[in-house]
């Protein structure tokens, strides 16, 4: 019954679309992207885009890229090990990873391990702060990370090949092909990374043992222009990796973990006058194997197959009003050694609207409802405005309700899962201020998040740990992002900085949540002149508490790196780069009893042909 009501508005929109078909030709844009909501319906929040030059100067893990360039805090269980974000003081399950418009957080864990995504496989990576569940569904509470593969039509044939070699026998190889005609465009990336990862613990007579890893990934994006109005696209991302889980200062380790992920998406886009129609189908497969002792064959495992069909229709009512409806059906089928085999079905509908009242003022509205047999899902909304008060000053307001659904492990863990769980829900509001002067852009955003029904695994009376909707957390804070650049002589000097202040605590308590720093800051200074560029990067991570009574903490730390690049005029370009990481050889831990490496080195060669 309910379902019908919800689909009605979308059906109505569909009828309009059929009626409104006309022959007028809409010129196809040169670059096609899949995550159009990031472009069209994210104007009332802060979006920070990291382009390929930033990506190429950072190590290939998503952890490293975002840790050194954004406000997001990471806890990394030792270099290259399991890594989870805390965005605006939220948990790892409250940040969504969006791959070409599709949420790819693990259905088993509800989060993404930021060390099992290779950054070089993507054309751009964007960080959207704040609530986004209306568009992106579960987990977009603290914010969302968008991994995009752009496709460009027009004649081109570009190859690039990159080799990295660094301390601890860390080897990276990356190949990228971009080829296209007026009708076809492809973008293929293949990456292979491996490391012995056996660094000395600075100041200790110990090494990082059993930390070796390797992974291989391939990302394929392909577009075919059927005619002037219709484009077919296919995206595929494969990742296969094995990590040994390193020991700690207190315990040796023999365990290892294997990840296999496959993501496929087929999309048909039609441009019909004022309508843009997108039909997407996706098939996602995730699988892990955990070996307690790598020397024997016993392992535990879990896997989930996810099938998604989505219809996304945009209607440009006028030059100033854009409507977007999205209907989505998702089926998950999970299985594993410790979970009950379950299939779950989730249907959802969203309506989005953007109205540019004038060149200075626009607002965005969104509403979404999900229907599933597994849990009760709240009605979500988002309201935002963007107002250019002056040429140099824009103010953005946004408020939204967001959610995070219970994971397979929460619901179906054998013997202790709790099928009665509700989703976590949040109400949140933010005020963003954007200042633009000649060479400077400064964004300062204040926010508040009220999170309820937070899932926590707690001991029950009989000693069994079970998830319950018991957490009530209030978080507030401020983020600021600064970009400044200036031409000096024949070169350009550029500064990028971020700073986050975060207070996150249980309702009625004064203790900060564990592993949420009050302060985090990043800074990078780069100078490029002709074929040479030099850059310096710095990270400050404030103290974090490691117990809920705030009696135990990890000291704050400062880590810097220095790098230089030189481009030779050979082939279509030959780049040579050298980096010194942890320049000042800081002794630090990001997670307790897991020291991070001291000063270490990386060099790379980049051929374009």
């Amino acid at each position, binding site marked *: 019954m309910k379902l019908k009501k919800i689909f009605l508005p979308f059906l109505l929109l569909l009828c309009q679309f059929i009626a409104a078909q006309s022959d007028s030709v809409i010129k196809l844009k040169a670059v096609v992207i899949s995550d159009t909501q990031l472009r069209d319906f994210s104007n009332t929040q802060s979006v920070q885009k990291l382009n390929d030059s930033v990506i190429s100067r950072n190590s290939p893990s998503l952890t490293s890229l975002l840790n050194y360039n954004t406000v997001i805090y990471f806890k990394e269980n030792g270099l290259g090990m399991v890594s989870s974000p805390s965005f605006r003081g939220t948990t790892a399950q409250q940040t969504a990873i969006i791959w070409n418009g599709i949420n790819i957080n693990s259905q088993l864990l509800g989060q993404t391990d930021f060390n099992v995504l290779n950054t070089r496989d993507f054309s751009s990576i964007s960080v959207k702060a704040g609530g986004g569940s209306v568009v992106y569904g579960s987990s977009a509470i603290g914010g969302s990370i968008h991994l995009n593969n752009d496709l460009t039509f027009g004649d081109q044939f570009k190859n690039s090949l990159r080799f990295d070699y660094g301390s601890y026998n860390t080897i990276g190889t990356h190949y990228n092909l971009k080829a296209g005609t007026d009708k076809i465009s492809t973008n293929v990336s293949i990456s292979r990374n491996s490391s012995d990862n056996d660094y000395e613990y600075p100041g200790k007579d110990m090494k990082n043992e059993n930390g070796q890893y390797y992974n291989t990934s391939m990302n394929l994006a392909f577009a075919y222009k059927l005619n002037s109005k219709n484009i077919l696209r296919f995206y595929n991302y494969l990742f296969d990796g094995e990590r040994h889980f390193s020991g700690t*200062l207190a315990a040796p380790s023999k365990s290892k973990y294997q990840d296999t992920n496959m993501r496929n998406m087929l999309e048909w886009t039609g441009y019909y006058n004022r309508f843009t129609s997108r039909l997407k189908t996706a098939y996602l497969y995730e699988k892990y194997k955990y070996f307690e002792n790598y020397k024997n064959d016993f392992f535990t495992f879990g896997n989930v197959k996810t099938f998604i069909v989505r219809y996304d229709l945009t209607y440009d009512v006028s030059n100033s009003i854009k409507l977007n409806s999205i209907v989505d059906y998702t089926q998950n089928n999970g299985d594993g050694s410790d979970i009950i085999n379950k299939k779950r079905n989730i249907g959802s509908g969203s309506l989005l609207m953007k109205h540019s009242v004038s060149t200075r003022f626009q607002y965005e509205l969104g509403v979404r409802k999900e229907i599933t047999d597994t849990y009760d899902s709240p009605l979500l909304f988002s309201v935002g405005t963007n107002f250019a008060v002056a040429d140099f000053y824009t103010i953005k307001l946004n408020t939204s309700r967001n959610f995070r659904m219970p994971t397979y492990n929460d619901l179906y863990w054998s*013997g202790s899962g709790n099928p009665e769980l509700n989703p976590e829900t949040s109400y949140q509001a933010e005020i963003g201020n954007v200042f633009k002067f000649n060479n400077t852009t400064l964004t300062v955003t204040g926010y508040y998040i009220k999170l309820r029904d937070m899932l926590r695994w707690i001991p029950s*009376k009989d000693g069994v740990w079970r998830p319950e909707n018991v957490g009530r957390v209030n978080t507030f804070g401020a983020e600021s992002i600064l970009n400044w650049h200036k031409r000096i002589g024949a070169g350009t000097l550029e500064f990028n900085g971020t700073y986050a202040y975060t207070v996150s605590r249980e309702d009625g308590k004064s203790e900060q949540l*564990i592993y949420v720093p009050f302060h985090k800051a990043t800074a990078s200074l780069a100078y490029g002149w002709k074929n040479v560029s030099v850059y310096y990067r710095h990270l400050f991570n404030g103290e974090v508490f490691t117990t*809920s009574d705030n*009696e135990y903490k990890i000291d704050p730390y400062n880590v810097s790196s220095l790098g230089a690049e030189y481009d030779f005029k050979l082939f279509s370009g030959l780049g040579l780069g050298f980096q010194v990481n942890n320049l000042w050889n800081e002794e630090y831990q990001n997670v307790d009893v897991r020291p991070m490496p001291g000063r270490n080195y990386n060099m790379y060669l980049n051929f374009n042909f």
Partner: protein
Amino acid sequence: MKLHKLLLTVILGSFLFVSCSSDDNNDSKPSGAYDNGVIVLNQGNFLKGNASISFLSNSFVTENNIFSTVNNGAVLGDTGQDIGFKGDLAYIVLNVSNKIEIVNRYTFAKVATISNGLVNPRYIAFHNDKAYVTNWGDGNIKTDDYVAVIDLKTNTVTGTIPVVEGPERIIEENGKLYVAHAGGFGYGNTITVIKTANNTIETTITVGDVPNSIETENGKLYVLTSGKSEFSGSESAGKFHIITLNDNKVTTTLDFTGLTHPSNLVIEDNRIYYTLNNDVYTMTLAPSVLPATSLFSTTAQGVKNGINCFAVEDSRIYVGDALDFNSNGKVYVYSLQGALQHSTTVGLIPAGFYFND
């Protein structure tokens, strides 16, 4: 807490991160003597390396983190499981670290470390110049469990005695070892009797599901089983057994009613004490029925997740509360009638009391 429940946390890639840092304490100098009081073993969190030792003197002065303080900030290890005293030495069994730290029991100065030959070590017992340590082996493998034999003169593992899955508590009486098989990752229901003379198994005694505590007194073995938890999918209630040691026969079995899961059997001054959830019970050494009412409850002190560790000594009852398992725990001391005498804060997850007197 059971390892496999904690493993879940790891697999979840999750967030019960806890510290081992020694900065939680003030600069109080070690007294140099930790006699005349109780040593509290704080288990710490799985894979967080924050096990610690607290000392509570008979006059109720608490000193936390004594191992690290005495030994120049050294990390004790991961998941403190048991402490055994032998002569002037204390043997601290660290489950996830796969080691035993040997310290002077009165000063806690480090003496030696045994780190070879132990795989998931659990509990320790002694006989003559040997120590016997139960080991799970790899948690997921049912057939590699053993009792390690340690030569105390060389502090090396000199032999192993293979046993069935999940050997947990171990005690020695008259040259025989009694090993309770709680089951490790699974669910055990036996007591293995081992002759130390030749390290062979004399017999196996079947008891209720998951024997969690054993004691000997006057030629009898007292066994408390918790029953299988709801987690198992085939929940069962606890049992109480008395076994005569000369013929290894079960002479008394008392069944707990409902699906209740008692633990922490202790014998002191000819009384039996045990706990059920947050309550303390007592009965005679030859009970015909289980007590219908508790001696007292600890809920007034805020204990709500079950009594994590328990002891009775010199007319005092000691209760350890792990709170949310991610904060410094509490120890409560009561009279034998259950009147609260003292409460204090110890380290993360108090898991055992060991009396130095």
